[in-house]
């Protein structure tokens, strides 16, 4: 991996450069109007011109996403652990969870707004709803995937259920929880933007809407890129946490 480490940086960068080049050539070649599709340079100019606004609104969206994700995590993990532990809870709530997951969150957004208002609360709730499921689903999967040998070892010493949960099942599920969190944190950004679209006067989603309505397409694109960067940064933060925790490093979750 170390020998080819540079490839992990060079090739993705190459992909981005190719895309930007193709985009630029397309706009120049076909003389596409700025309102329809600005060139990469025009987007960059708009971003630099409005960097103050992007920063302020970005921070708002960041706050909504992170808090929404945190709520989803704090609620989702214990619920998942409970569902994985108890057959009764599992049978009772699994169908409900799946049914709730199938409801499009965008459709819920206006109702949420009616319930909790246009403040940050509505964005938190929508981000929470969107980020909740990957965390629950992956945590349950992780709790179920405990290597049988670890459980037998515990049984051979007559470990209590609590000991099995805290010393084996949960630590074994951590990689799954992190995998779910990676998905959830990017979804939380989407949830926050949905909330901003439906009713808000701040945040990158709102900035995007405003720019669009003023036909300032370069700024709309700048806001879009800011959102992408936000999502990537949050994903990277979770990946970094995974690296720091150093759990499971060098070994697959299953023995052998």
């Amino acid at each position, binding site marked *: 991996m170390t020998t080819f480490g540079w490839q992990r940086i060079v090739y993705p960068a190459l992909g981005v450069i190719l895309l930007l080049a193709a985009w630029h050539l397309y706009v120049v070649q076909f003389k596409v109007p700025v309102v329809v599709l600005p060139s990469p340079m025009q987007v960059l100019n708009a971003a630099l011109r409005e960097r103050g606004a992007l920063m302020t609104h970005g921070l708002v969206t960041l706050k909504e996403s992170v808090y929404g994700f945190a709520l989803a995590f704090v609620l989702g993990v214990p619920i998942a652990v409970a569902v994985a532990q108890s057959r009764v809870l599992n049978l009772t709530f699994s169908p409900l969870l799946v049914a709730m997951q199938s409801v499009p969150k965008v459709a819920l957004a206006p109702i949420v707004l009616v319930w909790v208002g246009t403040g940050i609360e509505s964005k938190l709730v929508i981000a929470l709803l969107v980020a909740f499921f990957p965390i629950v689903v992956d945590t349950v999967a992780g709790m179920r995937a405990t290597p049988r040998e*670890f459980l*037998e*070892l515990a049984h*051979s*010493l007559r470990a209590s259920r609590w*000991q099995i949960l805290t010393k*084996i099942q949960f630590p074994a599920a951590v990689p799954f929880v992190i995998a779910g969190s990676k998905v959830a944190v990017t979804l939380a950004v989407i949830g926050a933007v949905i909330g901003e679209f439906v009713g808000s006067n701040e945040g990158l989603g709102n900035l995007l809407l405003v720019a669009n309505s003023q036909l300032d397409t370069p700024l709309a694109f700048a806001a879009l890129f800011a959102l992408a960067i936000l999502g990537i940064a949050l994903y990277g933060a979770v990946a970094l946490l995974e690296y720091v925790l150093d*759990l499971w490093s060098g*070994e697959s979750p299953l*023995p052998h």
Partner: protein
Amino acid sequence: MQQVESVARPSSAGSAPFGVVENVTKTFPGQRRGPPFVAIETVSLTVEEGELVSLLGPSGCGKTTLLRIVAGLERKTSGTIRIRGREIVEPQRDFGFVFQSPNLMPWRTVLDNILFTMEILGRRDRAAVARAHELLELVGLDAFSKSRPHQLSGGMKQRVSLCRAVIHQPALLLMDEPFGALDELTRMEMHDLLKSIQRVTRATVMFVTHSISEAVYLSDHILVFSKRPGRIAERIAVDLPHPRTAGLRYTDAFTEFEHRAGAALGIVK
């Protein structure tokens, strides 16, 4: 050939042996309404305190099932098992179990993996930590106490697993083909390590294996299993002197015992 003790000897009068397995049978329900599958049929054996008894047999002969029943990890269909007079129907906290795979938790360091046993027993204290270090030293791994399992070789992992199984000074150590996945040289090292661990802990050991030479080198008694349904075909007393060293493997007496076990398995005519 030489004198071979019969298996079905009645439990002799006088002081009861350390461990007694009496007429243990295990049947698994048949699949898709087929006939039930008899894994073990009326097996009886005794284990003396402090000795190492091997259960030797081909794969699928029920030797692992019997070991797991003694460990309380599996239920028997009928029969009784007594260790030190106690009837065994569930896992015992003064037993140790070594699995086929090292089974180390990747999120724990080597030291913490060994101390897992003491944590479950609620006895992770300073004495336990000191004892874990002693054991690590005994198996030559004290320098690795802070390492993670994935940094160790297969043999090193199995040594850690052995330490974890004996840190609470079990009365009975149950080992399920623990060295089966190791290469020949590592395996021979492990044999001597197991012997020194047994000397230090004075544990009685039941050892499942399908290697004839392993059984002869380690055992005081070998119980040879026949295949389907699992039965004990022969009980061989290996009266080679202790402590045994690698040179013993190349003596005539050693080969003689290998032949005898091979004959009991039906692979040497």
